[in-house]
């Protein structure tokens, strides 16, 4: 059997049987991170000396040496902007093209990935560092905080990830934990963790939704809560949509205003960072008041900027509407209506934005639930799960795959093997076959996404199944098995069932996807479903026609003599006609031409069959024949 595994290299989870050490829950967020611990079903966030639970997800590599994380790192932004990095989560498992620019300038100096992966590296503090290394610094700081608060060594954790994190991003998160000296007991989806915290704390039962708008990602999940079972029914989201987008909109506006006022700024990294920091402050202020203003200083030249709530609402209307559209789509996926939802749990700092709250309330028809601090709720849920996994508990989390997983077939069509919202762990197999006579190898292309065509989905891995015995087209039986484990990580295996030749191939996920690709892949299947379906039908018609032409060609080479010259002429004309329609875009025309050809081929096929039977029977006595029939 030829195997393809998509997992982090060298992963060998060690069992810790009988070990009663504590395990923490970590929300590794885009903007802020939180570490929490649960004891006897009571979760609590761990605070620093000043009583703060939130650790800004900011890492600094000061010129004086060492590493700073959190508030201290944030403070360094003013003096050493080039040595500070924020929102690194957005780059987990991503390529250079995923970075956002502000006024055409990136907030970081980047180095495209090299070698096996394309994961981007940032040049920070004079050294190229990967998002995995930088995230590991945040995790280390959280571990240290937990060890100080609990006075115990911490080696195990449940870490949350956005439901919509794909394979590459999940793998990168596990890698970061390992670098930080933490064994990941489980990667839990953030909305699921939030529901866990909410359900266990409030004893909620029934259908609940989690609307999670963080700094960089959006998730919407529907769960059924029932007697300790948390069953995710459907989930959806966008890994490139969040509060950072709001900041960027304000920052761009301010830099634009400066330009209009004739300030000839050289917009560099430092200017962009300063603008983003001020933008964030202004955004937060607008949650409590209708008007705000700020002072931006670039290269020693100050400028003053005012912003009203109404203007701000207009600026962010499009991304907020997108979250609502995605939510509605998830509801439809689960076959539910907004009216059936008992409550919506809000997660993520960006849900403090009034327009966001109003839009959610409007969609569901009732005010959202905010009893638990939206910044802490995910970490609290992770802590509960960490306790359940180590100490045992009656709670059961049943999660799903957020995106469909498929295989490329002829014509660039995606055949879905694991549909989205399938409960995990899962193992599903599908059989594929060869397309040409005598084909001995088959290219396997594993993709993730909802669109019908490969070009619109995310490519996860490619490999080739070789050693298929030469057979007639369509005779080989190639069984492809997709297995998704409880962490949401994928393994793919392929096997030719008539030979069972063994091959083992390990492939790492390919990082590096442009932002446009990602946005496309993630949820605009909704916008494209109809066009996709048409394109798929057209492609299928072409593929089918090509298959028939190939088969006919093979038959003509072998038995062309069975046709008269006129018949052959007609057949050739019909083939040419079909070829002609295949070059155009009209599916019905292709099908009509294929049918016309089929009619002409029929007598030829019958003659071939007669001849085949005659040949098979030639030289056999009646007795032979009877005994042969008898064998059947």
């Amino acid at each position, binding site marked *: 059997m030829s195997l393809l595994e998509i997992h982090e290299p060298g992963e060998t989870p060690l*069992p*810790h*049987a*009988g*070990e009663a050490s504590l395990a923490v829950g970590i929300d590794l967020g885009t903007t802020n991170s939180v570490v929490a611990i649960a004891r006897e079903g009571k979760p609590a966030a761990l605070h620093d000396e000043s009583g703060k639970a939130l650790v800004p997800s900011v890492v600094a590599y000061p010129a004086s040496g060492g590493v700073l994380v959190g508030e201290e790192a944030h403070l360094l932004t003013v003096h050493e902007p080039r040595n500070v990095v924020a929102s690194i989560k957005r780059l987990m498992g991503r390529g250079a093209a995923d970075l956002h620019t502000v006024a055409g300038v990136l907030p970081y100096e980047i180095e495209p990935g090299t070698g096996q992966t394309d994961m981007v590296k940032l040049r920070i503090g004079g050294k190229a560092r990967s998002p995995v290394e930088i995230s590991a610094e945040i995790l280390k700081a959280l571990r240290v905080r937990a060890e100080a608060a609990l006075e115990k060594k911490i080696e195990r954790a449940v870490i949350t990830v956005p439901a919509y994190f794909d394979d590459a991003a999940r793998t990168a998160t596990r890698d970061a934990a390992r670098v930080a000296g933490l064994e990941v*007991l*489980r990667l839990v989806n953030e909305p699921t963790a939030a529901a866990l915290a909410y359900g266990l704390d409030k004893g909620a039962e029934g259908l609940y939704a989690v609307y999670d708008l963080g700094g960089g990602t959006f998730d919407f999940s529907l769960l059924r809560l*029932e007697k300790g*079972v948390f*069953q995710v029914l459907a989930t959806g989201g966008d890994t490139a949509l969040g509060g950072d987008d709001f900041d960027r909109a304000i920052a761009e506006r301010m830099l634009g205003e400066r330009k209009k006022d004739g300030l000839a700024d050289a917009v560099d990294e430092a200017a962009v960072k300063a603008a983003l920091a001020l933008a964030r402050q202004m955004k937060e202020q607008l949650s409590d008041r209708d008007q705000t203003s700020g002072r931006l200083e670039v290269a020693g030249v100050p400028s003053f900027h005012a912003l009203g709530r109404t203007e701000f609402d207009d600026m962010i209307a499009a991304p907020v509407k997108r979250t609502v559209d995605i939510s509605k789509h998830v509801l*439809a996926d689960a076959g539910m209506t907004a009216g059936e939802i008992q409550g919506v749990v809000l997660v993520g700092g960006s849900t403090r934005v009034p327009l966001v709250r109003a839009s959610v309330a409007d969609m569901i028809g009732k005010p959202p639930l905010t009893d638990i601090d939206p910044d802490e709720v995910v970490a609290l849920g992770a802590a509960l799960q960490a306790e*359940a*996994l*180590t100490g045992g508990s*009656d709670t*059961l*989390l*049943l999660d799903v795959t957020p995106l469909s997983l498929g295989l490329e077939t002829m014509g660039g069509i995606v055949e879905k093997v694991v549909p989205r919202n*399938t*409960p*995990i*762990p*899962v*193992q*599903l197999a599908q059989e594929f076959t060869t397309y040409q006579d005598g084909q001995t190898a088959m290219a396997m292309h594993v993709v993730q996404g909802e669109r019908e065509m490969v070009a619109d989905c995310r490519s996860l891995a490619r490999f080739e199944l070789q050693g298929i015995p030469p057979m007639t087209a369509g005779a080989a039986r190639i069984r492809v098995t997709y*297995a998704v*484990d*409880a962490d949401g990580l994928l393994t793919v295996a392929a096997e030719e069932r008539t030979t069972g030749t063994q091959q083992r191939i390990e492939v790492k996920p390919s990082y590096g996807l442009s932002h446009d690709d990602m946005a496309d892949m993630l949820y605009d299947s*909704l*916008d494209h*479903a*109809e*066009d996709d*379906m048409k394109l798929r039908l057209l492609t*299928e018609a072409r593929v089918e026609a090509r298959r028939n032409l190939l088969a006919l060609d093979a038959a003509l080479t072998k038995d062309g003599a069975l046709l008269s010259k006129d018949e052959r002429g007609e057949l050739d004309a019909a083939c040419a006609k079909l070829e002609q329609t295949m070059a155009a875009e009209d599916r019905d025309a292709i099908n009509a031409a294929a049918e016309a050809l089929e009619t002409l081929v029929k007598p030829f096929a019958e003659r071939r069959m007669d001849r085949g039977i005659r040949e098979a029977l030639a030289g056999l006595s009646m007795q032979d024949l009877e005994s042969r029939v008898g064998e059947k």
Partner: protein
Amino acid sequence: MDHFARLKLPVVLQLDAAALDRSYFALQRQWHPDRFIGKPPEERAKASAEAAALNEAYQTLKDPLGRAIYMAELKGIALPGDGKTIDDPDLLTEVMDAREELQEASSVGEVDALAKFAREDLEQALSGLPRLFEANDKAAIRKALLRMRYLDKFAEEARARRANLQRA
């Protein structure tokens, strides 16, 4: 082991949804990989395989149409693969006419009406299935299931068309 046996349920078309959930949850409590953290690798692998099989069984049996198609398979009735040519000429005509109507629908209201019609049709066909299964009329079961699968797909296409119209 078939999906019904795995979930400790009787092989019936009209499965009680609450009983299905109860059985599934109880078995997942026993086999979910979360219950095997820290256990030896072979036990973990077994649990993972069992949990995956339970999920597949649950997903298949949860949906009434999926359940009916699966029961037909148990009886040796095979439907052509998805996306393959429909081998029933009457159904082919019906499908082509319906798709044309959907294409020509120019308002959300029209699309909704078509989708509603398809859904009701599907419900109707589902309610007629037990009789066919009782009579063990394989040809009729196959014909009915093919049509129901098309109706299900049509409802999905209507949803896509609806989204497109709403956007325009």
